[in-house]
């Protein structure tokens, strides 16, 4: 176990959660992230799907990295990623149909999720399969963490529920005049929330602040 999780590998796993977060620091993978964060459940499934696809595409590309001809590199990467995404899409349709209906085209858009191509180019093409696999899991989790935070806030403040459980109603908030914030369900709120998350994160880690 200690061989599999050397301190370097542990860093690969934990860095993307904060200092190298794919969304808030590397600015990757925002495209498909925003539309699925109205409720926690689809956000969680999306995060899981992206983690699986990132980890396995990293693994496969890294294993093949010495044999891939440079000229068709991008196409090979896209084919591998697209194949994995189709697998995930088919599995979702077969076993969690309701969620796959909510995610609709956004499952397909994992293919062009920049996290994938970004990690494949930056990491998997130059590193060993196991390290790449761990790197993929780490980045998927970093992406997932932001998705979960955003969807938690949007579901709680926008619909008054957490994972479908009516928290606000049980607390009796509605009877004292509390109303759900309709703007939270609107897609633009996701952007503003991520902006605020970046603000908080950078206030705590001064070295992430961009120079003028």
């Amino acid at each position, binding site marked *: 176990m200690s061989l599999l999780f050397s301190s370097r590998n542990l860093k690969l796993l934990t860095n993307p959660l904060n200092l190298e977060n794919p969304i808030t620091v590397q600015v990757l993978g925002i495209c498909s992230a925003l539309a699925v964060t109205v409720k926690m459940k689809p956000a969680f499934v999306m995060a899981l799907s992206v983690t699986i696809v990132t980890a396995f595409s990293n693994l496969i590309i890294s294993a093949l990295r010495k044999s891939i001809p*440079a000229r068709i590199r991008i196409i090979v990467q896209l084919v591998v990623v697209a194949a994995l995404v189709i697998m995930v899409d088919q599995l979702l349709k077969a076993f969690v149909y309701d969620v796959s209906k909510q995610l609709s085209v956004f499952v397909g858009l994992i293919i062009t999720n920049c996290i994938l191509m970004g990690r494949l180019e930056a990491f998997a093409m130059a590193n060993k399969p196991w390290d790449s696999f761990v790197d993929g899991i780490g980045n998927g989790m970093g992406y997932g963490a932001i998705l979960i935070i955003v969807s938690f806030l949007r579901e709680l403040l926008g619909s008054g529920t957490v994972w479908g459980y009516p928290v606000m109603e049980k607390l009796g908030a509605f009877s004292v005049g509390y109303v759900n914030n309709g703007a939270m369900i609107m897609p633009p709120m996701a952007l503003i929330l991520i902006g605020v998350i970046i603000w908080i994160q950078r206030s705590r880690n001064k070295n992430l602040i961009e120079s003028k």
Partner: protein
Amino acid sequence: MNKSNTYIFIYSTVLVVVVAALLALAATVLKPFQQKNLETAKKLEILHAVDKGWDAGSADNKNLYVDAQYNQYITRAFVFDPAGDTLPGRLAFEIDVSLEMKKDSTDRVYPVFLCTRDDGALNYIFPVQGKGLWGPIWGYIALGEDLNTITGAFFDHQGETPGLGAEINTRWFQKQFVNKKLFDEAVSFISVKVLKNNEPKLPDHSVDAISGGTITSKGVESTIAVSMKNYLPFIKKNKL
């Protein structure tokens, strides 16, 4: 690294063949599950029109539960043509209404599902299909034995605005349709209007629109009017 063209060619061929084979295998293995899910989803929508099946999400085996409920309540189903004559030997459940609506109006066939309620009353459930703001909306309208009074309605959508137009798939919106009527006393077709607050209400023929979701609400209105108009010959032949 640079490789020869032959290598690139062979490499891409092998890659494509392997990937295609894997995907075809996965698609074939998973197809039965996916089709069962689609079937369950459709059965559930039909049941929702008569206010049944809302607890399916908490059932241990959703597919089995929905099948049982469907078999219990939907006692008959048949297919009819635009002239209103029933076509024996066709399976109503297999008809895809969205495909039928794309054909010429004379070439279509329509399904209808008969539901026996707990109190023995007979309901006719008709599919409706139309467009909202962002994409298709669809649903089912249940009519009482007089083929005039609405006893239940269910709508769903593909991607209406969350919190606004998307509210058409909530129960408060759908419950408004209960006891509304399609025809007035002179037996002419009025359908059900979806009206905003400032519009004068028609007691038997209107429901409240969703504030902020006007286009979707109007989409529901025209969905019902257009679809039910197709069924008028059938309704006239069977009642009124």
